[in-house]
Protein backbone atom coordinates (compact mmCIF):
# COMPACT_ATOMS: atom_id res chain seq x y z
CA UNK A 1 0.00 0.00 0.00
CA UNK A 2 1.43 3.34 -1.06
CA UNK A 3 2.06 5.88 1.68
CA UNK A 4 -0.39 8.76 1.32
CA UNK A 5 0.40 10.88 4.35
CA UNK A 6 2.85 11.00 7.21
CA UNK A 7 1.55 11.46 10.74
CA UNK A 8 3.65 13.80 12.85
CA UNK A 9 3.56 13.76 16.65
CA UNK A 10 5.55 16.04 18.91
CA UNK A 11 7.25 15.41 22.18
CA UNK A 12 8.93 18.62 23.25
CA UNK A 13 11.77 19.34 20.85
CA UNK A 14 11.39 15.89 19.25
CA UNK A 15 9.16 15.35 16.23
CA UNK A 16 8.16 11.78 15.41
CA UNK A 17 7.27 10.93 11.81
CA UNK A 18 5.21 7.75 11.33
CA UNK A 19 6.29 6.09 8.11
CA UNK A 20 3.99 3.30 6.92
CA UNK A 21 3.31 1.43 3.71
CA UNK A 22 5.48 1.53 0.62
CA UNK A 23 8.07 4.31 0.47
CA UNK A 24 8.90 5.25 -3.14
CA UNK A 25 9.71 8.48 -4.96
CA UNK A 26 6.04 9.39 -5.15
CA UNK A 27 5.14 8.38 -1.65
CA UNK A 28 8.34 10.05 -0.43
CA UNK A 29 6.66 13.38 -1.18
CA UNK A 30 4.50 13.39 1.99
CA UNK A 31 7.64 12.51 3.95
CA UNK A 32 9.45 15.51 2.52
CA UNK A 33 6.41 17.73 3.10
CA UNK A 34 6.10 16.67 6.73
CA UNK A 35 9.83 17.12 7.25
CA UNK A 36 9.81 20.57 5.66
CA UNK A 37 7.18 21.63 8.19
CA UNK A 38 9.52 20.99 11.13
CA UNK A 39 11.32 24.18 12.10
CA UNK A 40 14.88 23.14 13.05
CA UNK A 41 14.94 25.88 15.69
CA UNK A 42 11.99 24.23 17.46
CA UNK A 43 12.48 20.59 16.64
CA UNK A 44 16.07 19.86 17.39
CA UNK A 45 15.62 16.17 16.71
CA UNK A 46 13.50 13.99 14.49
CA UNK A 47 12.60 10.31 14.75
CA UNK A 48 11.52 8.29 11.71
CA UNK A 49 9.21 5.63 13.15
CA UNK A 50 8.79 2.74 10.72
CA UNK A 51 6.80 -0.42 11.30
CA UNK A 52 7.82 -3.94 10.39
CA UNK A 53 5.59 -3.89 7.29
CA UNK A 54 7.08 -0.71 5.83
CA UNK A 55 8.76 -1.35 2.50
CA UNK A 56 11.32 1.05 1.05
CA UNK A 57 12.55 0.82 -2.53
CA UNK A 58 15.70 2.40 -3.92
CA UNK A 59 13.95 5.70 -4.67
CA UNK A 60 12.60 5.76 -1.12
CA UNK A 61 16.11 5.16 0.17
CA UNK A 62 17.39 8.10 -1.86
CA UNK A 63 14.61 10.24 -0.35
CA UNK A 64 15.62 9.20 3.18
CA UNK A 65 19.32 9.87 2.45
CA UNK A 66 18.47 13.36 1.17
CA UNK A 67 16.35 14.12 4.25
CA UNK A 68 19.12 12.94 6.55
CA UNK A 69 21.64 15.17 4.77
CA UNK A 70 19.24 18.10 4.95
CA UNK A 71 18.69 17.54 8.67
CA UNK A 72 22.43 17.31 9.22
CA UNK A 73 22.95 20.63 7.48
CA UNK A 74 20.24 22.21 9.65
CA UNK A 75 21.88 20.83 12.75
CA UNK A 76 19.02 18.46 13.59
CA UNK A 77 19.62 15.03 15.06
CA UNK A 78 17.74 12.22 13.37
CA UNK A 79 17.05 8.67 14.47
CA UNK A 80 15.26 5.70 12.95
CA UNK A 81 13.33 3.00 14.75
CA UNK A 82 10.92 0.15 13.97
CA UNK A 83 12.54 -1.12 10.76
CA UNK A 84 12.50 -4.81 9.93
CA UNK A 85 15.70 -6.86 10.12
CA UNK A 86 15.84 -6.91 6.33
CA UNK A 87 15.76 -3.14 6.05
CA UNK A 88 18.17 -2.72 8.90
CA UNK A 89 20.65 -4.65 6.76
CA UNK A 90 19.76 -2.70 3.60
CA UNK A 91 20.06 0.63 5.45
CA UNK A 92 23.48 -0.50 6.57
CA UNK A 93 24.41 -1.57 3.07
CA UNK A 94 23.50 1.76 1.48
CA UNK A 95 25.12 3.84 4.21
CA UNK A 96 22.06 5.20 6.01
CA UNK A 97 23.56 3.90 9.24
CA UNK A 98 26.56 6.12 8.54
CA UNK A 99 24.28 9.14 8.54
CA UNK A 100 22.04 8.22 11.44
CA UNK A 101 21.46 5.68 14.17
CA UNK A 102 18.90 2.89 14.08
CA UNK A 103 17.39 2.32 17.51
CA UNK A 104 16.10 -1.06 18.58
CA UNK A 105 13.19 0.46 20.50
CA UNK A 106 11.25 3.70 20.42
CA UNK A 107 11.90 4.29 24.11
CA UNK A 108 15.63 4.10 23.53
CA UNK A 109 15.32 6.56 20.63
CA UNK A 110 13.21 9.05 22.59
CA UNK A 111 15.56 8.89 25.51
CA UNK A 112 18.57 9.50 23.33
CA UNK A 113 17.07 12.19 21.10
CA UNK A 114 15.46 14.39 23.77
CA UNK A 115 17.50 16.26 26.34
CA UNK A 116 14.52 16.05 28.68
CA UNK A 117 14.24 12.26 27.99
Amino acid sequence: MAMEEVQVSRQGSLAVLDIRGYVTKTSGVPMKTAFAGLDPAVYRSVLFRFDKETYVNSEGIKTIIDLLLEAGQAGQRVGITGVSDHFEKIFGMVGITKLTRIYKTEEEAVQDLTPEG
Partner: protein
Amino acid sequence: MHEQSQAADVAQDRLERQLFHLKTLYDISREMLGETDTGRILKNFLLMTTGNFGTIDGFVLLRESGSGGIGHYSCVGFNEERGRGLETRGESLLAGRVGDAPGDASLITAEGLPASVVCSLSFTVDEDCTGLLGLGSKIVGEPYSDEDNDLLLTLVNNLVITLKNARHAEALRSAYEEVSSLNRAKDKMINHLSHELKTPMAVVQGSLKLLGRHLKGAPGEKWKRIYDRAERNLDRLLEIQDEVDDIVHGEAVGGYHLLRRLLDGCGDELEVLLAEKGTEGAVVEWLRGRIEEVFGSRECEPEEFSLGDAVFSRLQRLAPEFSHRRIDLGTDIDAGPRVFMPREPVEKVLAGLVKNAVENTPDGGRVTVAVQRQGECVRLKVADTGVGILADHRKRIFEGFFPTQETAQYATKVPFDFNAGGKGADLLRMKIFSERYSFDLKMDSSRCILLEDPENACPGDIENCARCQKEEDCFESGGSTFEAVFPVAPAGSPPGK
Protein backbone atom coordinates in the same frame (compact mmCIF):
# COMPACT_ATOMS: atom_id res chain seq x y z
CA MET B 1 29.80 -24.37 14.67
CA HIS B 2 30.53 -20.68 15.10
CA GLU B 3 32.18 -20.59 11.64
CA GLN B 4 29.13 -22.27 10.11
CA SER B 5 26.88 -19.71 11.71
CA GLN B 6 29.07 -16.89 10.42
CA ALA B 7 29.02 -18.36 6.88
CA ALA B 8 25.23 -18.63 7.08
CA ASP B 9 25.00 -14.99 8.14
CA VAL B 10 27.22 -13.93 5.26
CA ALA B 11 25.13 -15.97 2.81
CA GLN B 12 21.95 -14.47 4.30
CA ASP B 13 23.32 -10.92 3.94
CA ARG B 14 24.35 -11.64 0.37
CA LEU B 15 20.91 -12.99 -0.44
CA GLU B 16 19.20 -9.96 1.04
CA ARG B 17 21.49 -7.63 -0.87
CA GLN B 18 20.77 -9.48 -4.12
CA LEU B 19 17.07 -9.42 -3.37
CA PHE B 20 17.20 -5.65 -2.94
CA HIS B 21 19.17 -5.27 -6.17
CA LEU B 22 16.68 -7.45 -8.03
CA LYS B 23 13.87 -5.32 -6.62
CA THR B 24 15.61 -2.21 -7.97
CA LEU B 25 15.96 -3.85 -11.37
CA TYR B 26 12.27 -4.78 -11.28
CA ASP B 27 11.24 -1.28 -10.18
CA ILE B 28 13.30 0.35 -12.92
CA SER B 29 11.79 -1.92 -15.57
CA ARG B 30 8.26 -1.44 -14.25
CA GLU B 31 8.37 2.29 -13.64
CA MET B 32 9.87 3.03 -17.01
CA LEU B 33 7.51 0.80 -18.92
CA GLY B 34 5.50 3.07 -21.18
CA GLU B 35 7.26 6.25 -20.01
CA THR B 36 8.08 8.38 -23.04
CA ASP B 37 9.35 11.58 -21.42
CA THR B 38 13.15 11.40 -21.61
CA GLY B 39 13.68 13.93 -18.83
CA ARG B 40 11.49 11.94 -16.42
CA ILE B 41 13.16 8.66 -17.44
CA LEU B 42 16.63 10.00 -16.62
CA LYS B 43 15.52 11.55 -13.33
CA ASN B 44 13.80 8.39 -12.10
CA PHE B 45 16.67 6.22 -13.22
CA LEU B 46 19.16 8.39 -11.37
CA LEU B 47 17.11 8.41 -8.18
CA MET B 48 16.80 4.63 -8.19
CA THR B 49 20.42 4.01 -9.06
CA THR B 50 21.85 6.38 -6.46
CA GLY B 51 19.41 4.98 -3.89
CA ASN B 52 20.36 1.42 -4.77
CA PHE B 53 24.09 2.00 -4.34
CA GLY B 54 23.78 4.48 -1.50
CA THR B 55 25.49 7.44 -3.15
CA ILE B 56 24.84 11.13 -2.67
CA ASP B 57 26.02 12.43 -6.05
CA GLY B 58 25.21 11.28 -9.53
CA PHE B 59 24.42 12.49 -13.00
CA VAL B 60 23.25 11.16 -16.32
CA LEU B 61 23.34 12.95 -19.65
CA LEU B 62 22.51 12.27 -23.28
CA ARG B 63 24.37 13.71 -26.24
CA GLU B 64 22.73 14.12 -29.63
CA SER B 65 25.28 13.76 -32.43
CA GLY B 66 22.98 15.64 -34.82
CA SER B 67 22.88 18.82 -32.77
CA GLY B 68 26.32 18.13 -31.28
CA GLY B 69 25.11 19.08 -27.82
CA ILE B 70 23.61 17.70 -24.66
CA GLY B 71 20.01 16.81 -25.29
CA HIS B 72 19.07 15.87 -21.72
CA TYR B 73 20.79 16.17 -18.39
CA SER B 74 19.82 15.19 -14.89
CA CYS B 75 21.89 15.31 -11.72
CA VAL B 76 21.54 14.81 -7.98
CA GLY B 77 23.78 16.04 -5.22
CA PHE B 78 25.75 18.55 -7.30
CA ASN B 79 25.26 22.27 -6.94
CA GLU B 80 24.34 24.32 -10.01
CA GLU B 81 27.86 25.43 -10.86
CA ARG B 82 29.38 21.96 -10.61
CA GLY B 83 26.39 20.59 -12.47
CA ARG B 84 27.11 22.91 -15.43
CA GLY B 85 30.77 21.89 -15.40
CA LEU B 86 29.72 18.23 -15.54
CA GLU B 87 27.52 18.91 -18.51
CA THR B 88 30.33 20.54 -20.47
CA ARG B 89 32.90 17.90 -19.57
CA GLY B 90 30.46 15.06 -20.23
CA GLU B 91 29.68 16.47 -23.66
CA SER B 92 33.34 16.45 -24.69
CA LEU B 93 33.83 12.97 -23.21
CA LEU B 94 30.98 11.62 -25.31
CA ALA B 95 31.97 13.47 -28.49
CA GLY B 96 34.63 10.86 -29.19
CA ARG B 97 32.30 7.92 -28.70
CA VAL B 98 30.01 8.22 -31.73
CA GLY B 99 29.98 4.98 -33.68
CA ASP B 100 29.67 2.54 -30.80
CA ALA B 101 27.15 -0.21 -31.44
CA PRO B 102 23.70 0.63 -30.07
CA GLY B 103 23.15 -0.84 -26.65
CA ASP B 104 26.86 -0.92 -25.84
CA ALA B 105 27.46 0.12 -22.27
CA SER B 106 30.88 0.10 -20.67
CA LEU B 107 32.65 1.40 -17.63
CA ILE B 108 35.10 4.10 -18.58
CA THR B 109 37.81 6.11 -16.96
CA ALA B 110 36.42 9.57 -17.30
CA GLU B 111 39.20 12.07 -16.94
CA GLY B 112 38.28 15.62 -16.14
CA LEU B 113 35.19 14.78 -14.09
CA PRO B 114 35.11 15.87 -10.42
CA ALA B 115 36.99 13.57 -8.06
CA SER B 116 33.70 12.76 -6.30
CA VAL B 117 32.55 10.89 -9.44
CA VAL B 118 34.17 7.51 -8.93
CA CYS B 119 32.17 5.37 -11.33
CA SER B 120 31.51 6.35 -14.94
CA LEU B 121 29.74 4.42 -17.60
CA SER B 122 29.08 5.36 -21.20
CA PHE B 123 26.30 3.90 -23.31
CA THR B 124 24.93 4.13 -26.83
CA VAL B 125 21.20 4.49 -27.36
CA ASP B 126 21.31 4.61 -31.16
CA GLU B 127 23.54 5.98 -33.87
CA ASP B 128 22.56 9.53 -33.00
CA CYS B 129 22.51 9.38 -29.25
CA THR B 130 25.10 8.45 -26.63
CA GLY B 131 24.95 8.80 -22.88
CA LEU B 132 27.10 9.04 -19.79
CA LEU B 133 26.27 7.98 -16.25
CA GLY B 134 28.43 9.08 -13.36
CA LEU B 135 28.05 8.06 -9.73
CA GLY B 136 29.69 9.45 -6.65
CA SER B 137 31.38 7.36 -3.99
CA LYS B 138 29.22 5.18 -1.78
CA ILE B 139 28.31 6.58 1.62
CA VAL B 140 29.64 3.38 3.19
CA GLY B 141 33.03 4.18 1.66
CA GLU B 142 33.39 0.84 -0.16
CA PRO B 143 34.52 0.77 -3.80
CA TYR B 144 32.13 -0.47 -6.48
CA SER B 145 32.50 -4.25 -6.60
CA ASP B 146 32.40 -6.42 -9.74
CA GLU B 147 28.91 -7.42 -8.69
CA ASP B 148 27.94 -3.72 -8.47
CA ASN B 149 29.40 -3.10 -11.91
CA ASP B 150 27.46 -6.02 -13.41
CA LEU B 151 24.25 -4.72 -11.88
CA LEU B 152 25.03 -1.22 -13.12
CA LEU B 153 25.50 -2.50 -16.68
CA THR B 154 22.18 -4.36 -16.49
CA LEU B 155 20.43 -1.27 -15.15
CA VAL B 156 21.92 0.85 -17.92
CA ASN B 157 20.86 -1.68 -20.57
CA ASN B 158 17.31 -1.32 -19.24
CA LEU B 159 17.69 2.42 -19.45
CA VAL B 160 18.87 2.15 -23.06
CA ILE B 161 15.79 0.10 -24.03
CA THR B 162 13.48 2.61 -22.36
CA LEU B 163 15.26 5.53 -24.04
CA LYS B 164 15.02 3.81 -27.42
CA ASN B 165 11.28 3.36 -26.93
CA ALA B 166 10.95 6.98 -25.87
CA ARG B 167 12.87 8.16 -28.94
CA HIS B 168 10.73 6.01 -31.23
CA ALA B 169 7.60 7.37 -29.54
CA GLU B 170 8.94 10.91 -29.95
CA ALA B 171 9.77 10.27 -33.62
CA LEU B 172 6.27 8.88 -34.16
CA ARG B 173 4.68 11.83 -32.37
CA SER B 174 6.73 14.28 -34.39
CA ALA B 175 5.91 12.46 -37.66
CA TYR B 176 2.24 12.46 -36.71
CA GLU B 177 2.33 16.19 -35.99
CA GLU B 178 4.02 16.82 -39.31
CA VAL B 179 1.49 14.70 -41.19
CA SER B 180 -1.36 16.43 -39.33
CA SER B 181 0.08 19.81 -40.23
CA LEU B 182 0.48 18.81 -43.88
CA ASN B 183 -3.04 17.42 -43.83
CA ARG B 184 -4.39 20.70 -42.48
CA ALA B 185 -2.46 22.60 -45.17
CA LYS B 186 -3.83 20.23 -47.83
CA ASP B 187 -7.41 20.67 -46.54
CA LYS B 188 -6.95 24.42 -46.55
CA MET B 189 -5.59 24.35 -50.08
CA ILE B 190 -8.39 22.08 -51.38
CA ASN B 191 -10.98 24.19 -49.59
CA HIS B 192 -9.54 27.35 -51.11
CA LEU B 193 -9.34 25.78 -54.56
CA SER B 194 -12.87 24.49 -54.30
CA HIS B 195 -14.13 27.95 -53.37
CA GLU B 196 -12.12 29.60 -56.12
CA LEU B 197 -13.65 27.20 -58.66
CA LYS B 198 -17.17 27.56 -57.36
CA THR B 199 -17.91 31.07 -58.61
CA PRO B 200 -16.52 30.74 -62.18
CA MET B 201 -18.17 27.33 -62.54
CA ALA B 202 -21.53 28.75 -61.50
CA VAL B 203 -21.03 31.52 -64.07
CA VAL B 204 -20.06 29.02 -66.80
CA GLN B 205 -23.10 26.89 -65.93
CA GLY B 206 -25.43 29.88 -66.16
CA SER B 207 -23.83 31.06 -69.39
CA LEU B 208 -24.09 27.60 -70.95
CA LYS B 209 -27.78 27.41 -70.09
CA LEU B 210 -28.31 30.85 -71.61
CA LEU B 211 -26.39 29.80 -74.72
CA GLY B 212 -28.55 26.67 -75.02
CA ARG B 213 -31.68 28.80 -74.86
CA HIS B 214 -30.38 31.15 -77.58
CA LEU B 215 -29.33 28.28 -79.84
CA LYS B 216 -32.59 26.38 -79.49
CA GLY B 217 -33.97 27.75 -82.75
CA ALA B 218 -30.69 27.46 -84.64
CA PRO B 219 -30.60 24.96 -87.53
CA GLY B 220 -28.50 21.82 -87.57
CA GLU B 221 -27.71 19.28 -84.89
CA LYS B 222 -23.93 19.83 -84.79
CA TRP B 223 -24.06 22.49 -82.09
CA LYS B 224 -26.30 20.24 -79.98
CA ARG B 225 -23.63 17.52 -79.81
CA ILE B 226 -20.98 20.04 -78.80
CA TYR B 227 -23.34 21.67 -76.33
CA ASP B 228 -24.28 18.30 -74.74
CA ARG B 229 -20.62 17.34 -74.38
CA ALA B 230 -19.84 20.66 -72.69
CA GLU B 231 -22.84 20.35 -70.40
CA ARG B 232 -22.01 16.74 -69.50
CA ASN B 233 -18.46 17.62 -68.59
CA LEU B 234 -19.51 20.71 -66.68
CA ASP B 235 -21.99 18.57 -64.70
CA ARG B 236 -19.16 16.21 -63.96
CA LEU B 237 -16.98 19.07 -62.74
CA LEU B 238 -19.82 20.40 -60.61
CA GLU B 239 -20.36 16.95 -59.15
CA ILE B 240 -16.69 16.63 -58.22
CA GLN B 241 -16.73 20.12 -56.78
CA ASP B 242 -19.82 19.24 -54.73
CA GLU B 243 -18.16 16.08 -53.41
CA VAL B 244 -14.99 17.95 -52.53
CA ASP B 245 -17.06 20.57 -50.74
CA ASP B 246 -18.70 17.89 -48.61
CA ILE B 247 -15.35 16.25 -47.94
CA VAL B 248 -13.69 19.44 -46.75
CA HIS B 249 -16.90 20.50 -45.01
CA GLY B 250 -17.18 23.57 -47.19
CA GLU B 251 -18.17 26.82 -45.60
CA ALA B 252 -19.96 29.64 -47.33
CA VAL B 253 -18.05 31.11 -50.26
CA GLY B 254 -16.73 34.66 -49.91
CA GLY B 255 -19.38 36.28 -52.11
CA TYR B 256 -22.25 34.53 -50.32
CA HIS B 257 -22.72 37.06 -47.54
CA LEU B 258 -22.47 40.03 -49.92
CA LEU B 259 -25.06 38.53 -52.29
CA ARG B 260 -27.40 37.72 -49.37
CA ARG B 261 -27.08 41.25 -48.00
CA LEU B 262 -27.74 42.76 -51.43
CA LEU B 263 -30.80 40.57 -51.92
CA ASP B 264 -32.14 41.29 -48.44
CA GLY B 265 -31.62 45.03 -48.94
CA CYS B 266 -32.93 45.47 -52.51
CA GLY B 267 -35.23 42.49 -53.11
CA ASP B 268 -38.24 44.64 -54.07
CA GLU B 269 -36.22 46.94 -56.33
CA LEU B 270 -34.76 43.91 -58.12
CA GLU B 271 -38.19 42.42 -58.68
CA VAL B 272 -39.44 45.71 -60.18
CA LEU B 273 -36.40 45.99 -62.46
CA LEU B 274 -36.71 42.38 -63.63
CA ALA B 275 -40.42 42.88 -64.27
CA GLU B 276 -39.45 45.63 -66.76
CA LYS B 277 -37.61 42.93 -68.73
CA GLY B 278 -40.66 40.69 -68.63
CA THR B 279 -39.47 38.45 -65.77
CA GLU B 280 -42.22 38.21 -63.21
CA GLY B 281 -43.09 35.97 -60.27
CA ALA B 282 -41.12 35.04 -57.17
CA VAL B 283 -37.76 35.80 -58.78
CA VAL B 284 -36.17 37.00 -55.59
CA GLU B 285 -37.12 33.79 -53.75
CA TRP B 286 -35.74 31.72 -56.61
CA LEU B 287 -32.54 33.78 -56.57
CA ARG B 288 -32.26 33.36 -52.82
CA GLY B 289 -32.54 29.59 -53.20
CA ARG B 290 -29.90 29.49 -55.93
CA ILE B 291 -27.47 31.61 -53.91
CA GLU B 292 -27.96 29.27 -50.98
CA GLU B 293 -27.48 26.25 -53.22
CA VAL B 294 -24.39 27.49 -55.05
CA PHE B 295 -22.59 29.62 -52.49
CA GLY B 296 -24.11 28.63 -49.15
CA SER B 297 -22.58 26.75 -46.26
CA ARG B 298 -22.71 22.95 -45.95
CA GLU B 299 -23.78 23.03 -42.31
CA CYS B 300 -26.89 20.85 -41.92
CA GLU B 301 -29.22 20.80 -38.95
CA PRO B 302 -30.12 17.36 -37.58
CA GLU B 303 -33.78 16.41 -37.47
CA GLU B 304 -35.86 13.33 -36.75
CA PHE B 305 -37.36 11.64 -39.80
CA SER B 306 -38.37 8.26 -41.17
CA LEU B 307 -35.35 6.81 -42.94
CA GLY B 308 -37.62 4.60 -45.08
CA ASP B 309 -39.69 7.57 -46.27
CA ALA B 310 -36.58 9.63 -47.07
CA VAL B 311 -35.03 6.72 -48.99
CA PHE B 312 -38.25 6.00 -50.89
CA SER B 313 -38.72 9.62 -51.90
CA ARG B 314 -35.07 10.04 -52.98
CA LEU B 315 -35.23 6.79 -54.96
CA GLN B 316 -38.27 8.03 -56.87
CA ARG B 317 -36.34 11.13 -57.93
CA LEU B 318 -33.26 9.08 -58.74
CA ALA B 319 -34.82 6.27 -60.79
CA PRO B 320 -35.44 8.35 -63.96
CA GLU B 321 -31.70 9.09 -64.10
CA PHE B 322 -30.94 5.45 -64.88
CA SER B 323 -34.11 4.62 -66.80
CA HIS B 324 -31.93 4.08 -69.89
CA ARG B 325 -30.42 1.06 -68.15
CA ARG B 326 -32.08 -2.37 -67.87
CA ILE B 327 -31.64 -2.72 -64.13
CA ASP B 328 -34.21 -4.48 -61.99
CA LEU B 329 -34.58 -2.14 -58.97
CA GLY B 330 -36.08 -3.95 -55.99
CA THR B 331 -37.04 -2.37 -52.68
CA ASP B 332 -37.73 -3.69 -49.22
CA ILE B 333 -38.37 -0.53 -47.24
CA ASP B 334 -39.78 -0.28 -43.74
CA ALA B 335 -41.01 3.28 -43.19
CA GLY B 336 -41.25 2.83 -39.43
CA PRO B 337 -37.73 3.36 -38.08
CA ARG B 338 -36.77 6.99 -37.48
CA VAL B 339 -33.31 8.50 -37.29
CA PHE B 340 -32.00 11.78 -35.94
CA MET B 341 -29.47 13.43 -38.22
CA PRO B 342 -29.28 15.91 -41.09
CA ARG B 343 -31.39 14.73 -44.02
CA GLU B 344 -29.11 15.89 -46.82
CA PRO B 345 -26.15 13.59 -46.09
CA VAL B 346 -28.52 10.61 -45.87
CA GLU B 347 -29.91 11.43 -49.29
CA LYS B 348 -26.41 11.84 -50.69
CA VAL B 349 -25.33 8.51 -49.21
CA LEU B 350 -28.31 6.77 -50.78
CA ALA B 351 -27.76 8.43 -54.16
CA GLY B 352 -24.06 7.58 -54.04
CA LEU B 353 -24.67 3.94 -53.14
CA VAL B 354 -27.36 3.46 -55.80
CA LYS B 355 -25.23 5.17 -58.45
CA ASN B 356 -22.26 3.02 -57.51
CA ALA B 357 -24.42 -0.13 -57.64
CA VAL B 358 -26.00 0.72 -61.01
CA GLU B 359 -22.68 1.67 -62.60
CA ASN B 360 -21.15 -1.62 -61.54
CA THR B 361 -24.06 -3.84 -62.59
CA PRO B 362 -24.49 -5.00 -66.18
CA ASP B 363 -27.84 -4.60 -67.94
CA GLY B 364 -30.17 -7.42 -66.92
CA GLY B 365 -28.77 -7.23 -63.39
CA ARG B 366 -30.48 -6.44 -60.12
CA VAL B 367 -30.09 -3.69 -57.49
CA THR B 368 -31.96 -3.97 -54.20
CA VAL B 369 -32.46 -1.16 -51.71
CA ALA B 370 -33.62 -2.11 -48.22
CA VAL B 371 -34.30 -0.21 -45.00
CA GLN B 372 -34.85 -2.38 -41.94
CA ARG B 373 -34.66 -1.89 -38.22
CA GLN B 374 -32.38 -4.22 -36.30
CA GLY B 375 -32.33 -3.65 -32.53
CA GLU B 376 -31.30 -0.05 -31.87
CA CYS B 377 -30.09 0.45 -35.45
CA VAL B 378 -31.63 1.12 -38.83
CA ARG B 379 -29.87 -0.48 -41.75
CA LEU B 380 -29.86 1.01 -45.21
CA LYS B 381 -28.65 -1.71 -47.51
CA VAL B 382 -27.88 -1.40 -51.22
CA ALA B 383 -27.01 -4.73 -52.85
CA ASP B 384 -26.16 -5.38 -56.47
CA THR B 385 -25.45 -8.39 -58.62
CA GLY B 386 -22.66 -6.53 -60.36
CA VAL B 387 -19.04 -7.26 -61.04
CA GLY B 388 -17.93 -6.94 -57.40
CA ILE B 389 -14.70 -5.44 -56.16
CA LEU B 390 -11.25 -6.99 -56.34
CA ALA B 391 -9.96 -8.16 -52.94
CA ASP B 392 -7.00 -5.74 -53.12
CA HIS B 393 -9.30 -2.81 -53.86
CA ARG B 394 -11.76 -3.56 -51.04
CA LYS B 395 -9.38 -2.33 -48.36
CA ARG B 396 -8.89 1.00 -50.15
CA ILE B 397 -12.37 1.59 -51.47
CA PHE B 398 -13.21 4.34 -48.97
CA GLU B 399 -9.85 6.09 -49.25
CA GLY B 400 -11.09 8.43 -51.94
CA PHE B 401 -10.04 9.12 -55.50
CA PHE B 402 -9.63 5.39 -55.86
CA PRO B 403 -11.54 4.27 -58.95
CA THR B 404 -12.33 0.56 -58.97
CA GLN B 405 -12.11 0.44 -62.74
CA GLU B 406 -9.31 1.37 -65.05
CA THR B 407 -9.83 4.91 -66.32
CA ALA B 408 -9.99 3.71 -69.91
CA GLN B 409 -13.08 1.66 -69.00
CA TYR B 410 -15.19 4.60 -67.92
CA ALA B 411 -14.55 6.74 -70.92
CA THR B 412 -18.19 7.70 -71.63
CA LYS B 413 -18.50 9.69 -68.39
CA VAL B 414 -22.31 9.48 -68.58
CA PRO B 415 -23.62 8.98 -65.03
CA PHE B 416 -25.26 5.59 -64.34
CA ASP B 417 -23.84 3.97 -67.49
CA PHE B 418 -22.20 0.63 -66.90
CA ASN B 419 -18.60 1.26 -65.82
CA ALA B 420 -19.18 5.01 -65.92
CA GLY B 421 -17.32 5.03 -62.64
CA GLY B 422 -15.75 8.18 -61.34
CA LYS B 423 -12.86 9.38 -59.31
CA GLY B 424 -14.03 7.48 -56.25
CA ALA B 425 -14.60 10.68 -54.28
CA ASP B 426 -18.24 9.73 -53.69
CA LEU B 427 -17.26 6.78 -51.49
CA LEU B 428 -14.77 8.93 -49.61
CA ARG B 429 -17.54 11.49 -49.07
CA MET B 430 -19.75 8.74 -47.59
CA LYS B 431 -16.94 7.65 -45.30
CA ILE B 432 -16.44 11.24 -44.13
CA PHE B 433 -20.19 11.63 -43.60
CA SER B 434 -20.15 8.43 -41.53
CA GLU B 435 -17.48 9.90 -39.26
CA ARG B 436 -19.05 13.34 -39.15
CA TYR B 437 -22.58 12.16 -38.41
CA SER B 438 -21.72 8.99 -36.42
CA PHE B 439 -23.06 6.13 -38.47
CA ASP B 440 -21.32 2.95 -39.63
CA LEU B 441 -20.49 2.15 -43.20
CA LYS B 442 -19.85 -1.45 -44.20
CA MET B 443 -19.07 -3.19 -47.41
CA ASP B 444 -19.06 -6.80 -48.49
CA SER B 445 -18.16 -7.80 -51.99
CA SER B 446 -17.16 -10.76 -54.07
CA ARG B 447 -15.60 -10.28 -57.46
CA CYS B 448 -17.40 -11.97 -60.32
CA ILE B 449 -15.73 -15.35 -60.63
CA LEU B 450 -15.74 -14.97 -64.37
CA LEU B 451 -13.56 -11.87 -64.05
CA GLU B 452 -10.87 -13.41 -61.90
CA ASP B 453 -8.62 -13.27 -64.90
CA PRO B 454 -7.87 -9.54 -65.24
CA GLU B 455 -7.87 -10.00 -69.02
CA ASN B 456 -11.61 -10.74 -68.97
CA ALA B 457 -13.99 -7.80 -69.02
CA CYS B 458 -17.71 -7.68 -68.29
CA PRO B 459 -19.58 -6.77 -71.52
CA GLY B 460 -22.07 -4.66 -69.56
CA ASP B 461 -25.08 -6.73 -70.54
CA ILE B 462 -25.82 -10.25 -69.29
CA GLU B 463 -27.21 -11.13 -72.72
CA ASN B 464 -23.78 -10.51 -74.22
CA CYS B 465 -21.85 -12.50 -71.60
CA ALA B 466 -20.36 -15.54 -73.25
CA ARG B 467 -20.15 -17.33 -69.91
CA CYS B 468 -23.71 -16.77 -68.65
CA GLN B 469 -26.42 -19.07 -69.92
CA LYS B 470 -29.11 -17.26 -67.99
CA GLU B 471 -29.43 -14.18 -65.72
CA GLU B 472 -29.07 -16.28 -62.55
CA ASP B 473 -25.58 -17.32 -63.68
CA CYS B 474 -24.58 -13.66 -63.42
CA PHE B 475 -26.45 -13.12 -60.12
CA GLU B 476 -24.56 -16.00 -58.53
CA SER B 477 -21.16 -15.06 -59.87
CA GLY B 478 -20.48 -11.97 -57.74
CA GLY B 479 -21.81 -8.70 -56.38
CA SER B 480 -21.50 -6.08 -53.67
CA THR B 481 -23.50 -5.00 -50.66
CA PHE B 482 -22.99 -1.63 -49.02
CA GLU B 483 -24.63 -0.91 -45.70
CA ALA B 484 -25.07 2.32 -43.79
CA VAL B 485 -26.08 1.60 -40.21
CA PHE B 486 -27.73 4.52 -38.37
CA PRO B 487 -28.67 4.68 -34.70
CA VAL B 488 -32.41 4.86 -34.07
CA ALA B 489 -33.52 8.40 -33.11
CA PRO B 490 -33.51 8.85 -29.34
CA ALA B 491 -36.88 9.56 -27.76
CA GLY B 492 -37.69 13.27 -27.70
CA SER B 493 -35.61 14.30 -30.74
CA PRO B 494 -36.87 17.47 -32.48
CA PRO B 495 -39.11 16.38 -35.38
CA GLY B 496 -38.23 17.18 -38.97
CA LYS B 497 -39.96 19.78 -41.07
